[in-house]
């Protein structure tokens, strides 16, 4: 959050001593806001003023870390309400709950499932980020936390509101920096002590937003700055509303008490409802959602939705420019080219897959632009296509010389045939037509050896 000149000036000694090399403190303040000088360049600045300054110029939403070393989950430090304004930075994490009712053995089984919840999709890894262990109804919360922490390959959230249980659990694994969920108006003082002593992040929840702000300030006064705002799923509309209000207050009003990411605890029986609610909260604006399910079919859609929404809208989504083999193509399989805009590529690849006819897709580097845009922006040309095909040694892969080109680039046909050995088949304008086209070509015996 940038400070105004007057705000910086107020922090300065206002003595115009000139030791900084500028005639007045006001002139120095202008340099600081223009970022050509640092506040520390003022020889008379007090450490108290420096601290005030660093707080005022800090990011409007804190980055919060759970875990230690290489095993850390980070959330927060978001800067916008809508992703098109810039982008969303730290993808919402999914935490899976370990109910207190599970025996130790059942718990370990569930943690094994959490550890294995890793999926690879369109070249990206998606995984569950946290294991969330309930401690309130455990007879030995310390042993439970230790056991979970040893087994889990992801950092821990400790769920509970009972101070003595939480104290035992946190103390047992404080070196692993678990997130405490959650401080309430009833337990706030002891939970602040636990978090402060163990130096672990703390999720906080009041009965109203006003109360939440009060409780957060209490924690901040005790020098706790790793905080998450806690919400539940009892009234989902209310939760979306509160997630929006707190984020807006932090980002647009620089309201420090809400300058922290959010965690939403979803308590629902059906895993379908868990999935649907988790995806809703994840896109508007939770940093962590807690669910119960470990089924891949319920987790994968949510993880995919999060992956989608946290992509950078200003960076064209591109795939590597190379020759892709769909199915197991052979020397008689069809060959086509397309752009490296990932949406185009994945649509084309998906349709080829759907046709069940193996084929080669030569992906031309169009700097992440789709077919029409790359043509309009001179990012694709006949020369580039022919050159790319040579680089990718397409001619060595197949015996025939028939090239399917995007229907929208039908205009390339003559020139490709003029300057290369390839005979052109004009493909469909829309990827959807690809299966029909491939089957038609197959029926006609186009690729028969």
């Amino acid at each position, binding site marked *: 959050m940038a400070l105004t000149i007057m705000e910086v000036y107020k922090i300065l000694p206002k003595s115009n001593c000139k030791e900084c090399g500028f005639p007045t403190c006001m002139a120095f303040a202008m340099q600081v806001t223009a970022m050509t000088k640092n506040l520390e360049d003022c020889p008379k600045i007090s450490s108290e003023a420096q601290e005030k300054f660093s707080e005022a110029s800090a990011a409007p939403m804190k980055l919060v870390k759970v875990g230690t070393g290489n095993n850390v989950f980070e959330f927060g430090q978001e800067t916008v309400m809508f992703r098109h304004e810039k982008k969303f930075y730290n993808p919402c994490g999914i935490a899976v709950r370990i109910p207190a009712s599970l025996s130790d053995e059942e718990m370990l089984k569930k943690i094994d499932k959490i550890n294995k919840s890793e999926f690879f999709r369109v070249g990206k890894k998606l995984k569950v980020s946290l294991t969330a262990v309930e401690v309130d109804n455990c007879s030995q919360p310390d042993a439970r936390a230790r056991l979970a922490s040893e087994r889990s390959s992801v950092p821990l959230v400790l769920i509970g509101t009972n101070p003595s249980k939480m104290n035992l659990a946190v103390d047992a694994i404080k070196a692993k920096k678990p997130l405490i969920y959650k401080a309430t108006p009833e337990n706030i003082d002891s939970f602040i002590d636990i978090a402060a002593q163990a130096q672990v992040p703390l999720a906080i929840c009041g009965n109203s937003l006003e109360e939440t702000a009060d409780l957060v300030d209490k924690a901040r006064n005790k020098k706790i700055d790793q905080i998450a705002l806690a919400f539940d799923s009892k009234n989902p509309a209310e939760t979306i509303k509160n997630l929006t209000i707190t984020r807006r207050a932090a980002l*647009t009003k620089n309201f420090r008490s809400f300058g922290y990411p959010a965690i939403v605890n979803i308590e629902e029986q059906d895993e379908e409802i868990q999935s649907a609610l988790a995806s809703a909260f994840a896109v508007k604006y939770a940093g962590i959602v807690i669910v119960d399910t470990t089924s891949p079919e319920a987790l994968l859609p949510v993880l995919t939705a999060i992956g*989608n929404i946290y992509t950078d809208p200003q960076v064209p989504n591109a795939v590597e420019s190379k020759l892709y083999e769909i199915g197991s193509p052979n020397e008689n399989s069809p060959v086509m080219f397309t752009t490296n805009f990932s949406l185009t590529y994945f*649509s084309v690849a998906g349709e080829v897959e759907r046709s069940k006819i193996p084929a080669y897709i030569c992906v031309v580097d169009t700097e992440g632009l789709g077919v029409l845009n790359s043509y309009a922006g001179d990012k694709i040309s006949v020369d580039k296509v022919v050159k790319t095909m040579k680089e990718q040694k397409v001619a060595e892969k197949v015996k025939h010389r028939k090239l399917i080109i995007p229907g929208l680039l039908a205009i390339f046909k003559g020139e490709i045939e003029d300057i290369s050995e390839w005979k052109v088949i004009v493909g469909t304008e829309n990827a959807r037509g690809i299966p029909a086209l491939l089957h038609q070509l197959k029926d006609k015996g186009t690729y028969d050896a």
Partner: protein
Amino acid sequence: MKIPDVNEKWINKISEVTIGATRAQGGTRARTVTVGGGSTFPFLSFEGENPNKPVIAGYVTDDVSDLPDVVKNAIGNEINLPHEWAKKCVEEYGVDLISLKLLGAGPAKKDSSPAECAKIVESVLKAVDVPLIIWGCGDDEKDNLILPECSQAARGENCLIGSAKESNYKTLVAICKADKHKLIAEAPVDINLGKQMSILLSDAEFDLRDVIMFQSTAALGYGLDYVYTILERARISGLKGDKMMAVPQICDIASETWRVKEAAADEEALPGFGDVEKRGPLWEAVCAQVYIQSAADILILAHPLAIKTVKETIKRFFV
């Protein structure tokens, strides 16, 4: 502690569009469906209202050759007859309206005639008493032939007909005006083309208060982010006063979802991705839930479990 005032000063409302006509209104529907009318994003009741909740349209088509078994098996034999499928959607799945897509008219499909298409429309209207959305097959030339007859067959029913693109909007404007239907304006994930469609329609003297915007739709994992952001931006423009964008939005989630492998392929093809009987419908339901958050008003869904899940969450969101 006092919370700062974070209200956005939106200055415009999204238009309110009613689909369907009861007997008293010249149709034969038992109820109508109204969408839009919001003065802020969903659930932000502190700064505005959203008088109408999002609605679910049951996906029905006369050509199921492209649908995977996950959907076919879940629906059963009724899937082969549009009117029986529609009936099941209403009576068993509890959808708010029916979205009938006449894919069979496609030249590469059954190439069914305008008269055959009109018959299907009639049979669906007869079988169910909820409002109807009618889409052509997507081939402009063919749609120009079948949609006028379908529109006429549904005359007075105040259907929603789609979709008007730059290439074919004149025909659609003419039939919707003549037979008193609402119109879907289509743009390919492009906010400027969306606005241009609205301008073309108003220039053709079609009342924008009778229009639903279709910014095409992307499946989860296949460009969802683009459509999500376009829906948000369109809604922001509408709320900020751009009358051309202040219209409700429709998402055809079924058509897109059931083309992608994550929804349709079993675990043998996608090891570790879980049971497709649940993964498929959740691929559809999660996609719908995300679009609801970006201000979609009509969601077209096919799988009964997806419909059930989205219905249930809408219920929880709109207590």
